[in-house]
């Protein structure tokens, strides 16, 4: 068996590929559901209902989707330039840490600044913290050829230890009865709720606007061209005059800033303080989302709502039928694999022998 490059992708393949990907995902998951001894149809129905079936379900899904959108955008901009930032998890945590440092109730009071100014300052410092964390690996890649996958991945663990140090030390909440959590954010800095009685907050609007802004940046600006050209063909990009190192730095700052913002928005919108288990791997899920979205900023919004829906829906479904919540991870993973394979098959044909 081998793959031959297609001269042209047939229109049929382009239509059938996503349908086939969905069908394959449903089939694989259905087999596992059967294996768990649950009725397939009912399980899927409960899953969808738990994800999108009511205002409450939808609000939970969208709440979960907010950090995923931001880390998904972080991965998208970096991967477009072939800067493989695996460190969004760490950038998210330093962002959250910076947000608490600027906007937290240290010694019972916050910084004596107007709340509006403090709010902007909080977001900026979170973005800056995330950006600076990625700057080192990006410079080392551009100048010395150091593999950014290794450096960004390992920085995640260093950051987690740093957060742990801060939560047990200078930023520890004295009222938390020894629990390692940070001081709470000042009340004025918390994000307003979009729908009363739910957890859905205005961070959603910010995340969607950032997706639109990134889409516009990629499509309409010189920097967007530089990023796409650099990712697609670095030698040709350099030949045509793209400033390679400067573009790589810009991408790193953008990507790190987006991931850092994810941390700040989580703190300001949902948790109001920082703990070591604040992110169930949002940084890593962002990579999955970026790939599902084929590195398109607007598709990142859709992919985040899909992944978040599977996670939230699986929670409520597993309470009703005896299927473990891991089915959500299986669905997300299977969909990613089948989307990637389907994309491959639109570009290559398989020859047997």
């Amino acid at each position: 068996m081998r793959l031959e490059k297609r001269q042209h992708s047939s229109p049929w393949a382009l239509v059938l590929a996503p349908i086939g990907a969905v069908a394959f995902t449903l089939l694989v998951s259905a087999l596992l559901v059967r294996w768990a001894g649950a009725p397939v149809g009912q399980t899927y129905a409960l899953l969808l209902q738990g994800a999108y079936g009511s205002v409450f379900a939808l609000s939970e899904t969208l709440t979960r989707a907010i950090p995923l959108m931001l880390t998904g955008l972080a991965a998208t901009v970096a991967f477009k330039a072939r800067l493989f930032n695996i460190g969004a998890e760490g950038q998210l945590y330093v962002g959250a840490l910076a947000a608490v440092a600027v906007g937290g109730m240290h010694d019972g009071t916050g910084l004596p600044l107007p709340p509006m100014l403090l709010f902007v300052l909080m977001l900026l410092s979170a973005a800056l913290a995330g950006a600076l964390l990625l700057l080192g690996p990006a410079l080392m890649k551009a100048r010395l050829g150091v593999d950014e996958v290794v450096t960004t991945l390992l920085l995640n663990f260093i950051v987690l230890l740093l957060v742990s140090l801060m939560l047990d030390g200078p930023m520890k909440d004295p009222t938390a009865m020894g629990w390692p959590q940070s001081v709470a954010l000042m009340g004025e800095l918390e994000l307003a709720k979009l729908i009363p009685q739910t957890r859905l907050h205005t961070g959603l609007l910010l995340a969607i606007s950032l997706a639109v802004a990134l889409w516009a940046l990629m499509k309409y600006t010189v920097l967007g061209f530089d990023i796409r050209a650099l990712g697609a063909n670095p030698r040709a990009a350099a030949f045509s005059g793209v400033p390679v190192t400067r573009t790589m730095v810009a991408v790193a700052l953008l990507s790190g800033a987006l991931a850092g913002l994810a941390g700040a928005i989580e703190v300001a919108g949902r948790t109001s303080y920082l703990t070591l288990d604040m992110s169930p791997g949002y940084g890593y899920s962002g990579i999955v989302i970026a790939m599902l979205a084929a590195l398109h900023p607007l598709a990142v919004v859709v992919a985040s709502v899909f992944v978040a829906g599977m996670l939230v829906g699986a929670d409520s479904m597993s309470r009703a039928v005896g299927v473990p919540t891991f089915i959500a991870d299986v669905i997300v993973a299977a969909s990613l694999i089948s989307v990637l394979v389907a994309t491959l098959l639109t570009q290559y044909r398989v020859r047997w022998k």
Partner: protein
Amino acid sequence: MIDRVLSLSNISKRFGNLVANDAITLDLQAGEILALLGENGAGKSTLVSILFGHYTADAGSITVFGKPLAAGDPKAALAAGIGMVHQHFTLADNLSVLDNVMMGSESLWQVHTRRAAARDKLAEVAQRFGLTVDADALVAKLSVGERQRVEILKALYRGVRILILDEPTAVLTPQESESLFAVLGQMVAHGLSIIFISHKLAEVLRVSDRVAVLRAGKLVAQADARNTTQAQLAQWMVGHAVSPPQRRPSQRTGQAACVLHQVSTAPARDRLDGVSLTLHGGEIVAIAGISGNGQATLAEVLCGTRRITAGRIELMGQPLPHAPSQLVALGVARIPEDRHGVGLVGDLPVWENAVSERLRSPVFSRAFWVKRRIAQDYAKAVIARFDVRGGGPGTTARSLSGGNMQKLVLGRALMHPGSLVDTDTRAFTPKLIVAHQPTWGLDIGAVAYVQEQLFAARDAGAAVLLISDDLDEVLTLGDRVAVMHGGHLGQAKPALDWSRESIGLAMAGAQDVAHAT
């Protein structure tokens, strides 16, 4: 005729809508050199890949020494005695000649290698065919010609009876080509058969017994090499009569446009070492040389993608800026050697590629925003004026054919966006054109087109630096010709003062001899 060693019958292969091979039937006799002639994309590579088992034919069969050859199996082809020397060599640089020759020819389960026996056999094969090479030399230290000899030895060592050579002279000096032809003569004298793939008409007639011409996937003609002419072959290849490019000497040489003074780059394999050259407006200076002797670096330096460590370069009396966008703004038109890898970003649309060099100029962007309308209008104008076919501004550059890619590269380099609104051609003529292998891999029609454009730009007053591995191109286009060897650039002399022999000697490094004769 003598016995048939190989016969291809009705071989067809399609890639989607493209018919790469259309019912090709072809025989190879024992002890003959068959030249497979055709333009890029005519189907030569596909046919050979099918023969060698890299592709499976959609229809047709292959018979080797009377036995059918299993399709799609390179091992079967090797076992049947078919060997191939690829254009890009498949040698391990860090191993010796002997190791490279032995590699893959011994069983994995053998306890120790039989080097002494292998050395004797290699020496015997080398002697029989007149291919002398040091068995213990490291391949990395060998010249290109020597590496090719190792490739041929590797095939002969395995006892091939049919040897396929893919564009073997592309990397050789004229003298090296001659010695290759002598070796090929020895091989057929020993009863081997050779398939010689080329698009160079003169050497095809010089070396082969029989010529088979492919065009658009079809076998259009077969002829005895003694009974045909270059003009006839060219007509078969292209489908209509073509006139070979004519010399068109410069009428009016202007003032110095670009001056290089003792330019050197950081020590590396392909460096410049004290290169001095003056390029005048209205003349073409052609640089010949075996690839890897600094020509690529010279092109990169003038294209703004390589820094110099010593010396100075002046463009119209000013120091040459470093950044490519500044160079382009000052009127340097750049045609890189590798249009896929360097010239264009294949995944991006044609219009973005058309403006990529000037994207930072105020013509195409304001602050951060790209002026998409103006950029697309410019791309449409380039497409129209330079006859780029196969896609509009929105199609990806990758989907263009090689010739059309080159027209796009040429168009964006030569067509100043100002000429859209103003017809004062002189103001928008490039000051300097750096053309590195501008016709490499193009079909005859596209080659003529590119050469015509270079002549036209020169006659409009541009200084043209043409770097080419193709000696015919160098001698036809160049008003003055200089040869690079080992990072040094020889003196640029009028093209008519050179002969093929003196150029070949200079390419091999015998600069002083060339001057003396």
